[in-house]
C-alpha cells in the first residue's frame, strides 16, 4: 500500500542533501522573503513531522524535547542562527527519523491505519484516517516543503535544482 510513497519519502532525503550540499551552515537561517521558511526550520520541521508519524504508529519518538518548540505547527522561523542546531545535525536528525518510519510503517496493522485522523486541521478534513494522513505526510507534505527550499535557493541566488 505504501511502497511508492515510501520510495518517494526515501528520495526526499537524497533531494534534501542535494539541495543543501552547497549551502553554508551560516546561511541556513537566512530569509530572502520576510517571514519565509528557511532551511533550518524546514529540515527540523520535516524531522518533527516524521517523529509524529512514529507516534501515530505507536513507535518511540526520537526528536529531543528541547527542539520541538522550534519546529512544531505554529512555530515561526527565526533569523537568529544560534538557536538552531547545525546543518549536519539537522540532516542527521531527519535521516534518523526517516529510517525509523520506513522500517516501522510496513508492520503497522490495518486497524491503526483506519483510525480517525488525529490532526484537527480544517485543511486536512479530506484525510479522514491515520492511513490518509500518513500518506500525505510521506509525500505531499514533504514535497511542499522541499518546494519551499527550491524557491529559497533561487531567491538566495543559488543555482536552481528543480
Amino acid at each position, binding site marked *: 500500500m505504501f511502497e511508492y510513497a515510501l520510495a518517494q519519502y526515501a528520495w526526499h532525503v537524497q533531494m534534501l542533501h542535494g539541495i543543501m550540499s552547497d549551502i553554508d551552515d551560516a546561511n541556513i537561517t537566512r530569509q530572502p522573503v520576510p517571514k519565509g521558511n528557511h532551511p533550518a526550520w524546514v529540515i527540523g520541521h520535516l524531522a518533527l513531522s516524521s517523529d509524529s508519524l512514529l507516534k501515530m504508529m505507536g513507535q518511540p519518538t526520537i526528536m529531543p524535547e528541547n527542539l520541538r518548540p522550534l519546529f512544531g505547527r505554529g512555530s515561526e522561523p527565526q533569523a537568529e542562527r544560534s538557536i538552531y542546531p547545525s546543518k549536519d545535525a539537522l540532516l542527521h536528525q531527519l535521516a534518523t527519523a526517516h529510517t525509523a518510519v520506513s522500517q516501522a510503517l510496513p508492520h503497522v496493522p490495518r486497524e491503526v491505519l483506519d483510525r480517525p485522523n488525529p490532526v484537527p486541521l480544517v485543511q486536512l478534513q479530506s484525510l479522514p484516517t491515520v492511513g490518509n494522513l500518513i500518506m500525505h505526510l510521506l509525500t*505531499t507534505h*514533504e514535497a511542499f516543503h522541499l518546494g519551499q527550499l527550491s*524557491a529559497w535557493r533561487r531567491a538566495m541566488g543559488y543555482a536552481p535544482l528543480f
Partner: protein
Amino acid sequence: MNLKERLRRQMLTARETSERLLADFKTPEDWTRQVHPHCNHALWFAGHMAQTDNFFISVLDPAKAKDWPEFAKLFGMGSHPTANPDDYPAPAEVLATMRERRQTLLSILDNLSEEDFSEPMPKGTPEFLPDKGSVFETSIWHEGMHSGQLSVARRALGHEPLMA
C-alpha cells in the same frame, strides 16, 4: 480504504491546498510576481499543473490529451517564467484549463480498478512511471513540490502561512 480512494483523497487535498494559495493572487502583477528572476510565479504554477496533468492524461488515455504546443512552450518542463503578464493568457483562462485537466485526470482514475494500478505503462513512458498507480502518485508529489514554491510567492505578497 483502498488505494484508489487513498489516491483520490490525496489528489483532492493537494489541489485544495493549491487553490487556497492561488486565491490570494488578485492582479495580473500578483500572478506574475517573481521573488527572484529564477523563481516560478503563480501563473506559471497554474499553467504547469495543467500541462503536467495533460501529460499524465496522454500516457493513460491519449484520446483525451490536448495537443497545445503554445501552452507547452509557456508552461512545460524547462520553460522559464517571465514577469510580464502580457506574455501569458489571462489568469482566469489558465485556471479554467488547470481545473478542466484535473477533472479529466480524476475521471480516468475513477474508471480504473484496483488491479489496473499495477498494470505496467506502455513502452516509451518515462521510467519514473512504471505502472498506472505511479502516475497518480507522481501527480500528488509533483503538485506538492510546486505548491511549496507557490507558497513562497504568496508569502512575498505579505500573506500569512496557510497552516500556521
